[in-house]
């Protein structure tokens, strides 16, 4: 089946490298389908899905913003926010193309919308917008915060 929509994304030859933190979540995280079944909850989607959509929309920015600059630094994840100026942090089309690629490779066995969430985190880390280690430590804090009350 030929590719009917060519989506230029990462530079030629770039591959998707797994992010260890996200691989751990992928392997160990419990997906909504299992949780809902276990607890007898009927909602077809997890409660965080709408907030995830809010993040994606907010990152997509203003339609007139510069989407991306043809700048190797940006593609490599070394972001100079001043150089990029008013660029949307993660424009919708690029985010979706990366989600498509990740969904066919690293996250191909992850259900939706967990897959969308992992792809989002992966895109942010790849661009240097969020660092893996700070995400790891924030995750610990969040778990502690939510399980202590």
């Amino acid at each position: 089946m030929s590719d009917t929509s060519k989506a230029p994304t990462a530079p030629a030859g770039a591959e998707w490298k797994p992010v260890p933190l996200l691989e751990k979540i992928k392997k160990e995280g419990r997906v909504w389908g299992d949780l809902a079944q276990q607890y007898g909850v009927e909602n077809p989607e997890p409660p965080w899905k709408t907030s995830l959509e809010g993040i994606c929309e907010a990152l997509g920015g203003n339609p007139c913003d510069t989407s991306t600059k043809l700048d190797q630094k940006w593609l490599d994840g070394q972001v100079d926010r001043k150089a990029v100026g008013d660029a949307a942090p993660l424009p919708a089309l690029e985010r979706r193309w990366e989600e498509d690629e990740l969904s066919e490779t690293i996250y191909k066995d992850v259900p939706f919308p967990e897959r969308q969430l992992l792809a989002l985190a992966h895109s942010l880390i790849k661009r240097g917008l969020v660092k893996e280690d700070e995400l790891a430590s924030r995750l610990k804090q969040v778990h502690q915060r939510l399980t202590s009350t």
Partner: protein
Amino acid sequence: MSHGDRDHHAKIATGKGDPQCFKGTADGPPKFKVGQRVRIKNLPDIFYTRCQVYTRGAVGEVAVITHESPAPEDEAWGHVDKSEWFYIVRFKQKDLWPEYPAAFANDTLQTEFSERWLEPA
């Protein structure tokens, strides 16, 4: 020229919507008419385009003239000073895909292009 003002879009579009906010900003009336046969140009892609590869070089018919808007190739870079007319162009599926079954000769596909992608056929 890109707009450094983050609120620029909000200022021009609030209360009107997008693409309504670009009404009247193209350089003149639409170049093509409804019903006109057009060919999709194979312009070089400079990183960002919304013109699908499967339509390049195909001939179809203008079905609808939709609106004026900056072309996505410009809008992606923040270049929103120029607008173009947009057109929905309708193709026979058999003209897009060589193996499309002859039994379904009526089937069509339509999709939208900014004016720069079209030439008379």
